[in-house]
Every structure is written in C-alpha cells, then in structure tokens.
C-alpha cells in the first residue's frame, strides 16, 4: 500500500504543479481582463460599456466546459491550432475575467457618491481620485469576492483534464487506473485541492485584515 503511494508520487506531484500553474495563469490573466472590463463598465463610453456588458453576461451564463471545448475544438476549425493547455487557460481566464469585472464594478459602485464629490472638490483629477480615494476603499470590498472567485477557479481548473491536460485530476485518474485504489487516491486529490483553497482563504483573510482600518 505504501509502495503504491510512493510509486505514484512523481506523477501526482507533476499533476499538482500543473493545476497550480494553470490556476495562477488563469487568475493573473482573468484579473487583468477583469480590471479592464470593470473600468470599462464603470467609466467606458457607451458602446464599449455595452460590448463589455455582453461579454460579462454571456461568459457568466455559459458552462466553463463548453467554453473550453469551444476553444479547443473550435479554433482549429478556424485554422488556429491551439494546445489543450492554451485552450483551457484562455477559456477559464475569459470566464474569470467576466466575474472579476462584475466584482470590481460592484465594489467601486458601493462607495458612497460623496467620496467622489469630496475628491473632486479638493481638485483631484480622475486618476488621483481613483488612486487615493476609490481604489483603497473598493479593495476592501473587492478582495473577499476575489478570493471566492480564485477558489472557484482552482476547482474549475480540473476541467482541463477533459481536454487531456495532465493536471492533478488527470494524474489521479491515471494512478487509479493503474492501481485500482480509487478511494485512497481520490481522497488524496480532495485533500490537495482543499489544501490549496484553504491556503488561499487564509491568505485572503490576512490581506483583508491588513486593509481593514479603524
């Protein structure tokens, strides 16, 4: 039994690494999309705002797996060859970006109008108001929701196994296929996913406390 675990360790470790890398890439890219999308929803000209609104609502209403398949099997039909990992990361990042756009819009809009007025009244420019008045206050409201999204993304990253990326889920499946020890190894997978997400939540709470003020 112990031998089984030890023998499968390298494969599981590589899978875990892929899961972490995919999650980090998706979160970085998705947060970037989300910052752009959120600012467009808040301050964009009307046509841009509508475009982003369509993007956000559409992406939030489509199952992530359909998105991944659409890019993985759909892009080649358009003459674009994409790797499985590229398709997975792009699809999940687009999904993540839609959520983060909404989170940022909501966070900024929840700041009292008087704060903007006060910033304007002392002569702060738009960028100065963002930097000194809006972002520091919005961050406190955005951060908890962002951590939730990050946790969701780590879980969703298991979907890339369905386009044959050897992430943690796929690695476990391979090990189970070889050893027939389903209960043991799915318990290992569950523990590892939980460990990642628990760490994320703890880090989120730490950050939140740091931004909280008297």
């Amino acid at each position, binding site marked *: 039994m112990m031998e089984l675990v030890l023998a499968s360790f390298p494969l599981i470790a590589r899978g875990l690494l892929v899961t972490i890398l995919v999650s980090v890439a998706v979160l970085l890219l998705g947060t970037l999309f989300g910052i752009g999308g959120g600012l467009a929803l808040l301050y964009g000209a009307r046509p841009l705002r509508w475009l982003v609104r369509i993007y956000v609502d559409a992406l939030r209403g489509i199952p992530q797996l359909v998105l991944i398949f659409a890019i993985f099997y759909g892009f080649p039909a358009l003459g674009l060859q994409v790797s499985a990992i590229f398709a997975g990361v792009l699809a999940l990042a687009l999904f993540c970006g839609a959520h983060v756009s909404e989170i940022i819009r909501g966070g900024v809009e929840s700041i*009292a109008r008087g704060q903007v007025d006060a910033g304007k009244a002392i002569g702060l420019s738009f960028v*100065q108001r963002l930097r000194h008045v809006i972002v520091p206050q919005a961050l406190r409201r955005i951060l908890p929701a962002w951590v939730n999204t990050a946790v969701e993304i780590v879980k969703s990253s298991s979907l890339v196994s369905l386009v044959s990326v050897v992430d943690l889920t796929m690695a476990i499946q391979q090990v189970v296929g070889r050893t027939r020890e389903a209960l043991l190894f799915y318990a290992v997978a569950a523990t590892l996913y939980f460990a990642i997400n628990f760490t994320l939540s703890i880090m989120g709470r730490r950050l939140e406390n740091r931004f909280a003020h008297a």
Partner: protein
Amino acid sequence: MPEAVNPRNRLVVLQGLTKRFGTTEILRGVDLQVDQGEVVVIIGPSGSGKTTLLRCINFLEDYQGGRVLVDGELVGYRDGNGRPAKLPDRVIARMRADVGMVFQSFNLFPHMTALDNVMLGLREVRRMSALEARQNATAWLERVGLKDKLSAFPAQLSGGQQQRVAIARAVAMEPKVMLFDEATSALDPELVGEVLSVMADLARSGMTMLVVTHEMRFAREVAHRVVFMDQGAIVEQGTPQQLFGSPQSDRLKSFLSHLARGG
C-alpha cells in the same frame, strides 16, 4: 456687525444659470454675484435649488444654460462660439482646487486619518513637500480646535469634529471662495455650535463664502447678504435686516413663519 466689502471684485458671477435633470427644471435662470470677502447666505425650502446652485459653482453638476464665472473664468465649459464643450478633466480639477466645499454629510475619506485627509489635496494638487503639507495641515487642524485629533480616523470622531476636519481640508487649499452645503444639518443639536463658530471665524478672516443653511441666527449675525430661493429662482435678496425684518414677498413671509413655528 459684518464689515462692508469692496464691491469692485466680483468673485462669483452666475448669469441666467439653468439646470435641468431630464425634464425637471431645478434652476430657472439664476443671476447672482458675490464679491470678494462677502458672506452670502442662501435660504429657502428644500427642493428650491440651493444645493444644486452651490454644486454648479464647482461643477459637481453640469448646467444647461447660462454662465458660471469664478474669478472671471468660465466654469466647466470652453468659452467660445457654437455649442459649449466641456473642458478636460485636468482643467476642471484645477478650477475646483480654487473653490472649497463642505458637505452636509462631511464626506471625509474614511481610510485616512484627520491629518491625511487635510494633507491629500496639499500633496497631490498643491504639490507641497511632505513636510510643508504636514505643517500646513497641522496648523489648520489646530485652528479648528482639533490639535489632539491629528491621527484619529473619521470613525473615531464626533460629527462636529468630522465637519471641522472637512472645513480644514477645504480651507487648507486656500480657495478663493468657500461653499457650505447645509454643513450643520446632519449634526446633533449640541454639536452645531462648534461648527458654526469655526464658520463665523472664517467669515471674520475675510473669506468669501456662500452658505446654504437653515441656521437663521448664523444668517442674521454673519451674512452680509441673504438670498431667498424658491422653486429654482431667487425670489428676494438683501441685508439680513431687510430680509428678516421686512420680507416683501408672500413666499418669504410664509417660509419665515413656518421656520418660526418649527422652532
């Protein structure tokens, strides 16, 4: 008694100011001039357009007709032929820096200490060094009686203290004119006095002030001129003695009698 003011320097000029929200007319062609050093108190029932009038002067509201001039400069729009175009953000920001405003709900930045609230504009807009901004902000907070609250956050201060920080934040910018929008309306009665006395002190120092308030005693004692507004227009204006002693219009008479009955 307020001293006489030099009438030559028109600091704020409103000409035919018109403001609409959709189809509702909030201001219907308001003409008003405020001279340097003058304290003008605006009174009137709620919904009469007093607050909107103030907010047009530092362009927190745009306007659809007429002109707003501060120290000879057209506020918010490019002066020229054809359709008026809004000025770029940076130019509007520079104009706003010269017009201080105090709000009914204080609007202090909750994530900053009292000192940082006052320093922000000095650093970012007036481009002072950290040391200079700190000395300046400290001096103003001392002047409004908050020497021992420099490092307090807004949530740790009473309403009256918060509003005094807000006044220091506005005045520290050394604006040409100060706008007070019902600065004491949100305060508990026992805290109104400390804010009004800071405002009176400011008026005595020669600050040009436009004050929207329901405090008739303040209007009587501090104002050079009182303006009565109703339904988006100025109905009557004059010295406090004229307006409170012998109101001419029925609307002002009824407004004053309602106030008297209300307490």
